[in-house]
């Protein structure tokens, strides 16, 4: 009577491993798809924010450029940390807040993304040059376009 539950457990574990194996393979493929979808959305958001650049607070913000290899995710998180503020209240303020909220959403993880260097080896956000909002948005767009052009994401 003791061996039976043991066998059942083993079968269940095996089935779970197989199932998770198939799901994981599909998930890794989908992870990249989800990332690309998100990056497309981000480009649209940046383009929309560019239309409101005159309404943004003209504070200088750290804007990474010429990002080191494998530090792209870290640089992107520096862009995300910044809170783009609206300089004046009004209708545009709401739109700007909605767009900046969408910018801050976490990027979907991918296998390659997990292998990226830990933030310690990448430059800190403060070490990057500070630029006004217009250049900030342009550099963010350039970073996204650069990432999409790589063979690892």
């Amino acid at each position, binding site marked *: 009577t003791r061996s039976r539950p043991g066998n059942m457990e083993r079968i269940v574990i095996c089935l779970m491993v197989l199932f998770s194996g198939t799901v994981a393979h599909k998930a890794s*493929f989908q992870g*990249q798809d989800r990332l*690309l979808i998100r*990056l*497309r959305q981000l*480009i649209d958001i940046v383009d929309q924010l560019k239309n409101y650049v005159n309404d943004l607070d*003209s*504070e*200088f913000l750290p804007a990474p450029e*010429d990002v*080191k*290899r494998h530090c792209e995710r870290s640089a992107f998180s520096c862009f995300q940390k910044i809170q783009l503020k609206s300089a004046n209240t009004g209708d545009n303020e709401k739109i700007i807040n909605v767009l900046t909220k969408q910018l801050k959403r976490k990027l979907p993880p991918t296998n390659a993304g997990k292998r990226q260097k830990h933030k310690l080896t990448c430059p800190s956000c403060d070490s990057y*040059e*500070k*630029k*006004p909002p217009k*250049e900030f948005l342009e550099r963010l767009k*350039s970073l*996204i*376009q*650069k990432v*999409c*052009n*790589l*063979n*690892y994401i």
Partner: protein
Amino acid sequence: MERPARLCGLWALLLCAGGGGVAAPAETQPPVTNLSVSVENLCTVTWTWNPPEGASPNCSLKYFSHFGNKQDKKIAPETYRSKEVPLNERICLQVGSQCSTNESEKPSILVEKCISPPEGDPESAVTELQCIWYNLSYMKCSWLPGRNTNPDTNYTLYYWHSSLGKVLQCEDIYREGQHIGCSFALTKVKDSSFEQHSVQVMVKDNAGKIRPSFNIVPLTSHVKPDPPHIKNLSFQNGDLYVQWKNPQNFYSRCLSYEVEVNNSQAETHDIFYVEEAKCQNSEFEGNLEGTICFMVPGVLPDTLNTVRIRVKTNKLCYEDDKLWSNWSQAMSIGQKANPTFYITTLLIIPIIVAAAIIVLLLYLKRLKIIIFPPIPDPGKIFKEMFGDQNDDTLHWKKYDIYEKQTKEETDSVVLIESLKRASQ
């Protein structure tokens, strides 16, 4: 008596401190010195300056700079500033010093230094200088000669980008009608940490009489891919599946597609704009080789359909998406209506011929008489009339012959009538 004195002293201290505190923010640094400008490569303009004399000792100097119309503001500790500028117009930089990177801080008095385009009449410079990067392999620039220039002028194109050590000359010059152009090799250095940002281009003439023209081409735009190759067309579940291979050097995620389907019978012409396309059984996206699939809805399978595809760079990876590639080679699928028609006619003809032969065999004798009627022979008649000198016999024979002839004639008439009845 001491208390008022102490209070006075305290007040005095406070006032002094307050005064000092108020005075400090209003004090700006002295302006920078020795502001100069130089040009490297073709269009890299660098302004350099020296720190101001007599700056506050506690101040860690930062420099505030901007171009005309307060564009491109920058605050940084370096004593130089570099920018890639096409030197077709005058450009000026204003520099001031301050103590922090806070842009709300008021900088010193701004010093300005300008740089003008090279010597020459502005009208003589070439116009419409534009460049296109073909398939990330070679770049072609074209221009129109300037006004008031000698038609025999020999132009030379110089180019530079950050992966080159020095400025190179373009060798492959060609003429296309009014336009003159030049083509040079240009490839993307893969995964280099040092990115090529733009190509600087300069056109001038060999004699040095015209003013040089400049253009800076960003390497994320003006890209024209080669056309794709259609690999396979197939029908599955009533839908047309198109499978093609993208031009080399491009990731499928970086391209947008246009699929054109022409139906010759229905004379329809549909164009489908596709943002993302993928084959269900494709491998990891990092693999450049691989095919792209697209399903075209609403296609009639029994008619001739011709498919063509073209691609362009999209905004996910490139700055602009205006340049379409040329159309790919067309590929067709579907049956022509004509072959079936020809096949059926080819089958019917032998049947008709066979039937005709059978009919001929059945009615051979009758047809033969119809087709080949007995030819009356006057020579014979006259011979029997006049050849034999026996009048009686001739006389009698004459009637015999007439009888015979009438008999034959009636026979013929009977035959035809009976044939007619038979065919009815």
